[in-house]
């Protein structure tokens, strides 16, 4: 059982549950307390000790069900085999003793695997598969391409070679029995293949997921496939959580050397105002205030979508976010994003301003007319767009005024640096007024950009 639990811990790590040695010890102790006879209680006990959040509980529950649906090596294996043997021995004489007589005498000369297959002892076969997959270290399987090699390793460990020899011999001496054995071998191959697939599902998830996320992080957001959008959203949420954890720590920092007289007196009131303990002035740090202007015209829409999703998932870190979307004109979209699910919000924004040809000039005019007052010296303005204004007036002067009024002006451009300034791109003109201009085409670049923006407030 201990062996099995260890394999289960590995599988649990595979589904993303963090299982440290200390936790596995706790789980072992818990299992020792509740025993293993009641599967539901065992499941509860493992979920209690290993999982650390509701998500992990769900993942671990699924993992548990998958793991223990596997045939397990039985402890009482020799007994059950013996029983079956004796049953068969009982049955044999009653059902056509004559025909089976020379078959069974031949069975004695066969290898153990052949005997097992012919005796149709399911428990023994399942146990043999499980112990062979242990010998072939099935828990090391990582990629689906390894299925073949693991299947053959398991079969080898079960004694396939001997079985083949037996088959060859039998074909000559007893074709009928050979036929039965061959059918049984096919069934065995199938069972092994299933075991390996299950092993792959259990143990390989971690690697596969890491690899997929790595690829996804570096894939250009604008050209992402439809079926990957959901995965991308999940990835963005992960990024948001990481940023939240990093930056939501208290933003107070002591300024040693500046005595806070008021607090010191108050703190030492208990012993007559004699200042045993001193309190220093603290410096309060502003939480980031962000104004985001997002181009949602065709070419940039997808990136804006993910960017808005990320910015609006940073509640704990960012005090105040106001988002604006534009293509040919500009509207405020903060409320839509706050009140609706990401998919609905995006489709509503798109129906209002999306898919036009972008006109940066008039959008900036819209912003200056209505929303200029939202900018304070604590505000970071982020513009996300490719700065392709279809040869219309870029109105860079407005951008200068925005830059003057705010703390920082960051421009994120999904296009590569090489393309800036070519065709109708106004990037070089805008860039002079921006504190930072950076390329932002993949999830990784997006994370870095937002992380840097938030970090300037720490």
């Amino acid at each position, binding site marked *: 059982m201990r062996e099995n639990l260890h394999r289960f811990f590995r599988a649990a790590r595979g589904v993303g549950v*963090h299982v*440290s040695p*200390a*936790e596995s010890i*706790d789980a072992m*102790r*818990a299992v020792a*307390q*509740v*025993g*293993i*006879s*009641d599967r*539901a*209680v065992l499941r*509860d*006990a493992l*979920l*209690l*000790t290993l*999982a*650390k*959040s*509701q998500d992990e*509980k769900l993942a671990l529950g699924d993992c548990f069900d998958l793991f223990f649906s596997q045939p397990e090596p039985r402890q009482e294996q020799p007994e059950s085999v013996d029983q079956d043997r004796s049953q068969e021995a009982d049955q044999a004489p009653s059902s056509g003793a004559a025909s089976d007589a020379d078959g069974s005498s031949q069975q004695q000369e066969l290898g153990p695997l052949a005997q097992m297959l012919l005796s149709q002892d399911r428990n023994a076969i399942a146990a043999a598969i499980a112990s062979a997959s242990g010998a072939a270290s099935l828990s090391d399987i990582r990629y689906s391409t390894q299925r073949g090699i693991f299947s053959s390793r398991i079969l080898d460990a079960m004694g396939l070679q001997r079985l083949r020899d037996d088959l060859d011999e039998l074909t000559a001496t007893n074709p009928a029995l050979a036929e039965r054995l061959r059918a049984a071998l096919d069934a065995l191959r199938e069972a092994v293949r299933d075991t390996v697939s299950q092993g792959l599902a259990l143990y390989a998830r971690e690697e596969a997921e890491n690899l997929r996320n790595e690829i996804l992080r570096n894939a250009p957001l604008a050209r992402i496939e439809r079926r990957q959008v959901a995965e991308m959203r999940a990835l963005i949420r992960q990024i948001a959580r990481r940023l939240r*954890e990093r930056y*939501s*720590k*208290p933003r107070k920092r002591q300024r040693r050397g500046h005595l806070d007289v008021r607090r010191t007196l108050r703190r030492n009131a*208990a*012993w*007559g105002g004699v200042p045993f303990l001193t309190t220093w002035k603290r410096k309060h740090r502003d939480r980031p205030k962000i104004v985001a202007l997002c181009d949602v015209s065709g070419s940039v829409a997808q990136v804006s979508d993910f960017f808005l999703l990320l910015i609006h998932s940073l509640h*704990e870190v960012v005090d105040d976010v106001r988002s604006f979307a534009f293509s040919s004109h500009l509207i405020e979209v903060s409320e839509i994003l706050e009140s609706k699910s990401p998919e609905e919000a995006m489709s509503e924004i798109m129906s209002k301003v999306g898919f036009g040809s972008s006109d940066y000039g008039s959008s900036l005019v819209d912003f200056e007319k209505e929303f200029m007052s939202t900018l304070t010296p604590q505000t970071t303005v982020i513009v996300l767009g490719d700065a392709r204004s279809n040869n219309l007036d870029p109105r860079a002067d407005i951008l200068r005024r925005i830059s003057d009024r705010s703390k920082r002006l960051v421009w994120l451009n999904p296009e590569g640096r090489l393309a800036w300034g070519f065709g109708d791109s106004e990037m070089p003109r805008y860039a002079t007024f921006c504190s930072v201009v950076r390329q932002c085409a993949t999830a990784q670049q997006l994370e870095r950009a937002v992380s840097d923006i938030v970090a300037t407030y720490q």
Partner: protein
Amino acid sequence: MADQKASTSIEAVGSGLAAQGYIASRQIATAVYLSQQIEKPILVEGPAGVGKTELAKAIAAWRGMKMIRLQCYEGLDEAKALYEWKYAKQLLYTQILKDKLGEVLGGAQTLHTALGQLHDFGDVFFSKEFVEPRPLLQALEQPGGCVLLIDEIDKSDAEFESLLLEILSDFQVTIPELGTVSAITPPTVILTSNSERDLGDALKRRCLHLHIGFPEQRLEERIVESRVPGISQTLRRQMVGFIHEIRSLDLKKLPSVSETIDWARVLVLLQATELDTEIVKDTLNVLLKYEADIEAAAPQVTTFIAKAARSNVFG
């Protein structure tokens, strides 16, 4: 054999809690049993009002132990949670003992010898008598053990979490002047959290993690039955069914078990025998705590009552 014992013990925990009016699901009973056996705290998470705090009270009542409660809030620190020196008492005693001190030090000719004599008396003023134990220290000092409830740990600062680690893993605290104080009997520790912020991994690792969600219909009916004995079976079924329908809506604050119990009490008070649109609309403010939620739920009331009644017939 051991397995047999375990499952009966878990059932015993369940029935023990039930005797105190707390209907526990199997997960909860298992958690309580395990925390007792392997001496680990339970971290209970879940939405407000599903009975997290109530669980601690029920355990204390069931085992006949004292419950010590530490309510967490932002700014909670060592002095309020663990121990504090009784400064006033120390000052008072120095005043009273002034003469005595004079006697003791009277023979000393120089400052140096006086200091030496003073050292021989040891740190009288920093001894156990001058420590004001706060909830955490109190819990360790209970001779018969106790249930320590650390409520809403997510409201406290991250630094406070680190302070708890020593207590949670070893049931001891270190006071610089006194040394380490170990628990006489390890207390049963229950931490609750509304997941307002993510707790640190170090804290989570030291606890059994129990998530209490909204209960299933059957369980909730049993809870109502034990808490509000006066309610008829039909009404109970209807109202629990109705609440389960309400929970499927997208509301700001979903009604939880405590609201169910309140509502059941209200319905009994109003002597309702059956749910109808009128009475539900009048009492909806017991279930839903936001105006927007009430507005969202009000148009659906009739449908939900019908649904609850239907499921009643077939269930």
